């Protein structure tokens, strides 16, 4: 196999160095290295390949919105070398057969590693446990289980799931949404929902489930991961659980670090534009501040995109009828740069920890999320933090275009992505 040398990259934003890749592994780091091929990375930051703990690839079932192939292309362009594919497909990924299918599709596409998430309950119906062990033992080696999109709201079922996955070091990733408190909910419950006449989605509906689940996880001694925290109160509960030494981790999406619910009322694309309709909903400025702080101080472990592609007809409609979700793979690093790096809350080592190392660790995903050091698999993202550009989704690899950032100027650009030494993206384009 040929060798590649990445010239002059600043590893985690540090001093420029050359990185020699041989046989898919970082062989040497130093000055004046040479290889069969050379990638000029002067001025670029080298990060460990990003890992997403929460991606909706839609296949099987909604190939009109996204496929494993298109979604992983988007991931590679966003600097990701591995993604966890959420289970709410059609059919639901609740058997070994479906998770193996998704895993194989990922292998065939080859843009990044796809680790399927298994459903906690059969059909996401919240009634009985899916065959969690069979999924764990399958070729896909599932370690993350989630009914994402729906909350495992039954306390007994949640307890059993948390207990059961201990047998194979799994983790239950909970979409925390008390269903009765959010019946018919359309956006964050607050001043804006009151004015717009949209049924409110109270913060307590998220916080109550997180509090309950932390207590359950502590009681049975299991690992809990909380998906897409969105409120200041959720942060406080996770902080409290961690202070107790409980095995609780949490994620935040890029959009919850940047966008607020007043965009539903007033934005450059008008009011009631469903491009901002997402689950959990965009919250207030105070929530955004709390989430940023919590990500900086480690209360929130990682950033997860919750990349949720939808075809245009599911968004070009009245608010109540529109689908919830936004795409995010191709903008995640830029949004994190704007929200966390340019505000001085995180340095690039901090970004690497929260967008690569922590999600790989939580997902028990070997070979990813390792520091860029000799002997590590060469999963590397080269990023230009110095540029700024207007977001134009026309060129996106995702099949869907439901990004809230269209027309907005964001910093940074992923220049190259290497998956085990093989470039999946070069010069900002699929390799």
């Amino acid at each position, binding site marked *: 196999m040929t060798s590649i040398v990445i010239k002059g990259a600043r590893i985690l934003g540090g001093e420029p160095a050359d990185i020699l890749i041989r046989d898919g592994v970082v062989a040497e780091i130093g000055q004046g290295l040479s290889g069969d091929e050379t990638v000029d990375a002067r001025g670029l930051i080298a990060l460990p390949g990003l890992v997403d703990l929460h991606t909706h690839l839609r296949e099987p079932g909604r190939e009109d919105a996204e496929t494993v192939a298109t979604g992983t292309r988007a991931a590679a362009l966003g600097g990701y070398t591995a993604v966890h594919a959420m289970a709410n497909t059609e059919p639901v990924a609740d058997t070994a057969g479906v998770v193996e299918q998704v895993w194989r599709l990922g292998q065939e596409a080859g843009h990044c590693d796809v680790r399927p998430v298994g459903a906690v309950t059969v059909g996401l119906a919240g009634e009985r446990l899916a065959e969690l062990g069979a999924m764990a033992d399958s070729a896909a080696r599932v370690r993350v289980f989630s009914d994402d999109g729906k909350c495992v709201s039954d306390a007994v079922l949640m307890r059993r799931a948390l207990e059961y996955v201990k047998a194979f070091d799994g983790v239950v990733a909970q979409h925390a949404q008390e269903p009765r408190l959010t019946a018919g909910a*359309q956006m964050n*419950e*607050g*001043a804006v*929902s*009151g*004015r*717009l*006449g*949209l*049924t*409110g989605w*109270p913060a307590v509906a998220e916080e109550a489930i997180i509090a309950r689940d932390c207590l359950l996880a502590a009681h049975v001694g299991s690992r809990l991961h909380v998906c897409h925290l969105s409120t200041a109160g959720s942060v406080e509960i996770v902080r409290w659980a961690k202070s107790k030494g409980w095995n609780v981790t949490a994620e935040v999406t890029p959009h919850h670090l940047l966008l607020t619910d007043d965009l539903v009322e007033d934005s450059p694309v*008008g*009011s*009631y*534009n469903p491009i901002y309709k997402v689950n959990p909903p965009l919250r207030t400025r105070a929530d955004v501040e709390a989430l940023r702080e919590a990500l900086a101080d480690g209360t929130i472990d990682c950033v997860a995109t919750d990349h949720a592609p939808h075809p245009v*007809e*599911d968004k*070009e*409609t*009245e*608010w*109540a*009828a*529109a689908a919830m979700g936004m795409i995010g793979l191709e903008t995640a690093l830029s949004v994190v740069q704007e929200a966390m790096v340019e505000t001085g809350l995180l340095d690039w080592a901090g970004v690497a920890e929260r967008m690569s190392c922590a999600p790989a660790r939580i997902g028990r995903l070997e070979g990813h999320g390792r520091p860029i050091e000799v002997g590590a698999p060469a999963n590397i993202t080269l990023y230009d933090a110095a540029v700024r550009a207007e977001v134009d989704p026309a060129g996106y690899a995702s099949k869907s275009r439901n990004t809230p950032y269209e027309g907005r100027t964001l910093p940074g650009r992923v220049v190259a992505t290497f998956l085990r030494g093989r470039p999946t993206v070069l010069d900002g384009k699929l390799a």
Partner: protein
Amino acid sequence: MKRHLISAADLSRDDALLILDTADELAKISERSIKKLPTLRGRTVVNLFFEDSTRTRISFEAAAKRLSADVINFSAKGSSVSKGESLKDTALTLEAMGADAVVIRHGASGAPHRLAGWVRGSVVNAGDGTHEHPTQALLDAFTMRRRLGPLDGRRVTIVGDVLHSRVARSNVLLLSTLGAEVTLVAPPTLLPVTVDSWPCEVSYDLDTVLPKSDVVMMLRVQRERMNAAFFPTEREYSRRYGLDRDRVAKMHDDAIVMHPGPMNRGMEIAAEVADSPRSTIVEQVANGVTTRMAVLYLLLGGADLGGEIQ
């Protein structure tokens, strides 16, 4: 004035007064034997109703016809929220028909905002979900002004299911613009959690507010709210928030009683109160036509009214 009337918040004080003054002028026409003006001849007004409301539709239809506009009634009931694409498709159809104004009633809050992004004509919100119903607020203000004179400093009490009421939302906004002092009275379950950010007072106790009120507006209570535990029983609701003869006796002599209709007689309002001389419920219907004429006239830029009303 803005091109659309989607929210009462779209109206400045001057806009609102212009509409009410124009409605006053137009009311004179209703007293003539020939009730029609040629003002909007050749213009097309589409009544786009995704939700049944015969009363509101007829009111807009009468208003448009008295101004000689062509009226197309487009009933799209049943296709609203279940099949999302229909609103945009409908908008494209309206564009092709050259609608100058679209009067839209829709079960989803914000549907008129979306429509306004897709059509060139003026959009008039005739009620969207639990959001707003600005022409209802205008006709209510018009009715109050006819009975009480200028609204500055007048005390208006709105009673009932504020949470789900587009009428209440629009009234709070418009009445505060016009200088009235609004008090909302409801059980806490039927008020938005952030109602304290609204330009109004809030009370849970109707009896203490009544003696200070110049206007008491009763909102319709939907019986299904009881099943969703917004209040315990109809009887309890009626006892605490219903307007009966004993409560009316606490109001001062000139105070009026309003209701946007349709009423639950015996629930939020006693029959004898609804039919009393204090009640403006019948006038509100007539005033609806005049006020909506004023809105269509001003939005569609009709010729100078002075020359037409002799």
